């Protein structure tokens, strides 16, 4: 199976690594990046030895998948915000930029920000819902 290329920020520094789709974050940190400070004590989320903070949330790295989808990607799938999918990568990048700039956009702000991305399949309804839902999700997770 093809390995995935992940780009992220670790301890404030840009980092990138290859991992398998079902590899845990714990394994990717230790084996992919050589960051062995994160320890494996049980691999079932019970001992806390592998704790890390992901997007402001405290999580056990042994229970988190390394290539976990950005919340936007997951929300696009849940909302069926794509049909043929060819415009989707562009929308996700544009929406990610929106949420960085405006964590709490209104529907109208979202529509105007995304007016530079054409979609011919969806009529934009489910795309907008996915983006607004992602914004809400990110706000709730940060609490």
């Amino acid at each position: 199976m093809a390995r995935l290329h992940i780009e992220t920020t670790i301890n404030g520094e840009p980092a990138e690594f290859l991992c398998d789709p079902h590899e845990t974050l714990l394994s990717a940190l230790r084996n992919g990046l050589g960051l062995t400070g994160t320890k494996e004590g049980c691999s079932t989320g019970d001992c806390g030895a592998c704790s890390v903070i992901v997007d402001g949330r405290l999580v056990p790295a042994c229970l988190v998948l390394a290539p976990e989808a950005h919340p936007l990607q997951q929300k696009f799938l849940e909302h069926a915000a794509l049909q043929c999918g060819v415009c989707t990568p562009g929308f996700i990048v544009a929406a990610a930029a929106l949420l960085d700039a405006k964590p709490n956009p209104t529907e109208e702000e979202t529509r105007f920000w995304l007016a530079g991305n054409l979609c011919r399949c969806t009529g934009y309804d489910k795309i907008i819902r996915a983006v607004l839902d992602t914004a809400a999700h990110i706000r709730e997770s940060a609490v």
Partner: protein
Amino acid sequence: MSIPREFKYVGTRPIRHDGVDKVTGRASYGADAAWPGMLHGAVLRSPHAHARIVSIDTSAAERTPGVRAVVTGSDFPETTAALALGEAAIDLRDISESMIARTKVLYHGHAVAAVAATTFDIAKEAAEKIKVVYEPLEPVTDIDRAIAPDAPILHPTLKTKGAPEGATGPTNVASRLELKRGDVDAGFAEADVIVEREFRTAMVHQGYIEPHACIARCGEDGRAVVWCTTQGPFVVRDASAAIVGLDPAHVKVIPSEIGGGFGGKIVVYLEPLAIVLSRKAQRPVKMVMSRDEVFRATGPTSGSKIRVKLGARRDGRLVAARASLWYEAGAYRGSPVGAGAMCAIAAYKIPNFFIEAYDVVVNKPKVAAYRAPGSPMAAFAVESAVDDIARELKVDPIDLRLKNANREGDQAPYGPKYGPIGLEPLLETARRHPHWTAPLGPNQGRGFAVGFWFNAGMNSSATVTLNADGSAAVVTGNPDIGGTRVAQALMVAEELAIPVERVRPSVGDTDGSGFTDVTGGSRVCYATGMAVIRAAEDARDQLKARAAKMWNVAPDAVTWQDGRAIPPPGTEKAEPLTVAEIAAKMTHTGGPIVGRASLYAPMAGPAFGAHICDLEVDPETGQSRVVRYTAFQDVGKAVHPSFVEGQMQGGVAQGVGWALNEEYIYNSDGVMENAGFLDYRMPVASDLPMIEVANPLHPYGVRGVGEVPIVPPLAAVANAMRDATGVRFTELPLSPPRVLAAIESAAPVPVDA
């Protein structure tokens, strides 16, 4: 079809199996592949809309370093083959000539030569060096000019098919169709109210975001492999083989993921060119269209001129209808005007009518199918007229339609009686919906319209293969445009009672899947779905037979319930077995289990849609915005509700664009002036509200969903515009300059009490 009444998987909303690839950009569309040793192809296109080709000299191109092959029309054999696409017999000679010119160029952008070189830039520059001598002719780019007695003639040998006896002489009218019932003059004599108008719509494009793209490899032995974005890999195979002169048994087509089609990727534009270039160069050739080429040289849909005369009695009953439809076919015959004629009054019980339909060639690209081809324009005309009748009679527009709505057993305008149809429940639901009575703001208007379209059946094949771990793979030959793979997985999950995540749906190539007709015509979930279900049933029958072997009982004594094979009562040491348990022992009970099915399905029942549109018009700029939209449709059982909603919302968006802004703008030389997304203005996210979809209906069995949603919006928007401005627009699109000019020159219309 033995779909159980209580569904466990069908009707749920699982994440599509190809979803992660699509949201990460990993999925491979037509232009995303590269083959070793690949060359790049470029096309030289005509600068004239209508001209004779006097000579072509390719020598300068051939001498250019890096160029490996040059082809012109003379590299393609004459073919009189017709390809029964099932939906419509397509004359391959027309397709071949439209793809690359022979003695005449018939539209601006018509290909005259193609070049394959080591880089795209070399190919493009070399193509520009090809010397073509043209004898320009007067172009014809509108219907009125094309049917005038002194019109320039595109095809000297064209005769009007279906013309009344005695019609001869050079013509641009390729065919005439007539539908008739009763006595239309007597009908109008009976009418208390008559509305008569002439409507016009412009040529528009399907607007798929992914341009056409392919890679072809053809050896000296005449065996070819083609990778391409298409709605129909078998069409690409058979059409390319016939156009190039190959044996289709030696052509394999691998469909990529497809970035939109809507009917525009059912025909071939690049693949035969790439095959012949590859055969000459003895290397694979990749060809990708630019957006400019997509507009100029693929298959938009017809512009139209439609005259409608409708008569009604004071009690609201429609008594007579007369319609004349002229549709642009583009450079070669074959517009969907016949379908337009069949759909125009399909919703209404009208005892007297006369409909005539004309297919007109003009110097524009040859039209291709676009979502319910022919129906949206006809609905624009008729539904606008019905709206005017409602205003004259001062009755509610939905009530007027209810009074005249066709039902099961009524005769369709094209002849046969309707089976179960959902028009009346649709109208009732719309009338009860809060949108219909919600208050409107200043400068806002509300429009209502219905639409009608068929749902195709035709050829489909499917295989369902079991794995030893109890998972299953389902393979069909239908490219997935809108979520059909996950719908197929849901059907297999339902039939075999295994989780939908354990079903892997995929699209095979033309060697690996049984013959299947195109993805289009709203047919995949219905017809291919039927094949999938039958293939799963076949697998299930084999599972039962294997269980019988394991229990040492007769196969017909085994029953199936809740996803398990059940042994006959009293069988010793026999517990019910799941799919996984039986599959684990496949090797020992007879070998692999492969379920298969293939069928030719008749058309599913036709379907209606009903839409309510609220439009806000800025009286100072003529700009308008859809502020609220609700779509109703009888779709039958929704296998995956999210994708059914998506089809409806997407069709609405295209219809709104067609109504408000989209059009091919031609200059007097027959050149399209707005061949890019900046000036060919499709709706963006800020143009539309959330599009509410209501599926209230009794499921009238299984029928398609994809095409109907584009039919009502043209009239729904136009009727909303009438409501908002007091002006009846009979020409689309309702672009701001047109709206502003009409508002400013219209006399004020008293507001209806």
